[in-house]
């Protein structure tokens, strides 16, 4: 993890605005993680996703674009891209399913056990959330915090409607309160910087 200074931004939002963050989450967000462990440990210990939920709801997982069948043997590297999805329709949806009956049909792209030494350290990984998992896991990731380039965050805020800003109850920029509307100002965050954004929803 690079040691550059990050701006910290905390938003307290109405539940109604959760969906506004889905485009970011499906495209993928960077989060801090302890790497060098198995995907199983990352999900259940670090991200505190109950094992039963992981088994039953997160039925399709990609690690660096490769569908995985075993959480225990997939080891997480720095900058890994992890995509989490619920069950998918169709034959191809079925082939992607973790340990599914049709897994052989995508054998050529399947992720197999990671070889070699993976250094155990604090780093960042990229997480993508799809479909049913967006409303279910999205609030947790947003609350723990995502790291986002300033330009991307500015573009995100720029497109937001009045309804979004009304749903933003309060905002803290580096621990100082700021009027939410001001967040759409393009010059608010230094160029090329990154922002650590945490978003709280009432029930998260």
């Amino acid at each position: 993890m690079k040691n550059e200074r990050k701006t910290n931004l905390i938003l307290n939002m109405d539940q109604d605005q959760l969906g506004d963050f889905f485009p970011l989450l499906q495209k993928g967000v960077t989060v801090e993680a302890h790497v060098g462990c198995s995907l199983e440990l990352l999900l259940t210990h670090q991200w505190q996703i109950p094992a039963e939920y992981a088994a039953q709801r997160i039925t399709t997982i990609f690690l660096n674009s490769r569908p995985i069948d075993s959480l225990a043997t997939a080891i997480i590297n720095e900058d890994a891209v992890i995509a989490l999805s619920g069950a998918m329709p169709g034959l191809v949806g079925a082939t992607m399913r973790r340990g599914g009956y049709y897994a052989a049909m995508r054998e050529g792209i399947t992720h197999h056990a990671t070889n070699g030494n993976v250094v155990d350290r604090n780093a960042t990984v990229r997480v993508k959330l799809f479909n049913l998992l967006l409303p279910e896991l999205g609030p947790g990731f947003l609350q723990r915090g995502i790291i986002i380039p300033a330009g991307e965050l500015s573009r995100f805020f720029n497109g937001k409607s009045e309804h979004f800003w009304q749903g933003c109850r309060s905002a803290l920029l580096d621990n100082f309160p700021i009027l939410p509307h001001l967040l759409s100002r393009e010059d608010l965050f230094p160029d090329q910087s990154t922002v650590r954004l945490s978003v709280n929803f009432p029930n998260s």
Partner: protein
Amino acid sequence: MDKIARIDMGAAGGPKVTVGDLGEYAGLGGRAMTSLMVAAEVHPLAHPLGAENKLVISPGMLSGTTGSMTGRLSVGCKSPLTGTIKESNAGGQAAQVLARLGYAAVVLEGKPEGDDLYKIVINKDGIQVIVDNSLKLMDNYPLVAKLRQEYGDKVAYMTIGSAGERKLLAASIACTDPELRPTRHCGRGGVGAVMGAKRVKAIIIDDAGMKMRPPKDPEKYRDANRKFVEGLRKHPVTGEGLPAYGTNVLTNVLNEAGGYPTNNFKSGQFADSAKLSGETQAALEIQRGGSATHGCHRGCVIQCSGIYNDKDGNYVTKQPEYETVWSHGGHCGISNLDTVAKLDYMDDNIGVDTIEMGVTIGVAMDAGLAEFGDDAAAIRLMEEVEKGTPLGRVLGSGAAITGKVFGVERVPVVKDQALPAYDPRAVQGIGVTYATTTQGADHTAGYAIATNILKVGGDVDPLKTEGQIELSRNLQIATAAIDSTGMCLFIAFAIMDQPETFQALLDMLGSFHGITMTGDDVVALGKKVLSAERDFNTRAGFTKHHDRLPRFFYNEPIAPHNQTFMMKDEELDEVFNW
């Protein structure tokens, strides 16, 4: 469903209707009916647009009953696009209404002399074939609006747009949905061109005065249907994922897997896929006052469809499906859902298959007719098809013809039918089905069905790569059977994962007909259908050499996995060895 209507459009003195009993076709419906009849009655070397071809329209075995999900309609013929046998099916109201009128099949035969255009009215009093030249070259939306003035809103319409009348090889047959929009299409294989060749513009089906088809064992049927619906509702795909996001929920996942063909199959990932995803689409539909959950026919409990409005809240089209969003979207480098929705509307209105047209536009872009990602150019090319210009006729005749006319080497077709939205280099198993299906490249030919429960062809170890041949075979058998029931294929997940839901389906079939139905019976039906289709294709001149993917899949590795299609020819030849 105790009768078959045959309409000889070429009879001396004008079209002649004959209604007879089921004979050798007793007990059949859907794909089993269309394929067995075409295989038995159409000369395999017949010209698909000639008098010798037949267009067989058949509701599923359970259509017209109180059973859920039973509203699929099959249309079969010799395909003008592929030259093979063809079954193309759609939702909408037509199957339910036709089945309640008692028709197991309506068969359009022969071909009229002259230029007159006909409409066919089917109701409880019989069948009338009426000349109506006022409908000439109308497209589906205005056509249905005009017909509604005469026949009202309590009927189902099957129509062809200008593409069908022009006999374009991508032409579809539209079936109206519960709101009487012509949005549900028998799309694949150019079946609309066959209807156009027979000069039939519209079929109006009116079941006023008819009742639901009664099961032999009503109590058992009701009970089985209840369990079946419970199974669909409790499964995460059929009870949650499909109703919330529709089939386009696959965009993000296929893209992540590197199996999302982009810019005419040049890459397996599209940078802007999230802009096209089912998640984005559903949010937009709800925000604009449309709907992300809608059934294409009454009695659908999954409701994978929706209503897509423009930014002012006006209806544009039904929710485009995954394959449509892909073909008009990532395949053409286009990332704007409004553009995709407009093209989907144009497809439905002109009456062309969304997969074939989207793939064709991508091939045309590769030919230099437009830049990838040029939304306006894609719409302009569709307008050529709408106007019936010479260029439009080439494009409307599909990807294979367009590729030949413009000298494009990378043309994603099998047996001249465009490949759908899954790259076979990333998902090798689906390539087996694309290559070997009797229908030309078709993702639904070997969909996802309970092969693990059915154990078709014995126990397979699916985790071995060799298992892919068996899997593809089993999927094709099971799909052929389900296509015959009238059930929507999206029931697949629930019956695959939940043995009790599969049993409920068997019980529905059994109690309706007063028999005991087992998994083996389903397998036997599927095999019978596939064998008849293969036999027809063989007699039509197709050999194992047609069961192959285009060479570029073997020669051009695709990012991000840099894989080619690796299944050996000898392995592909094993699919139909049973």
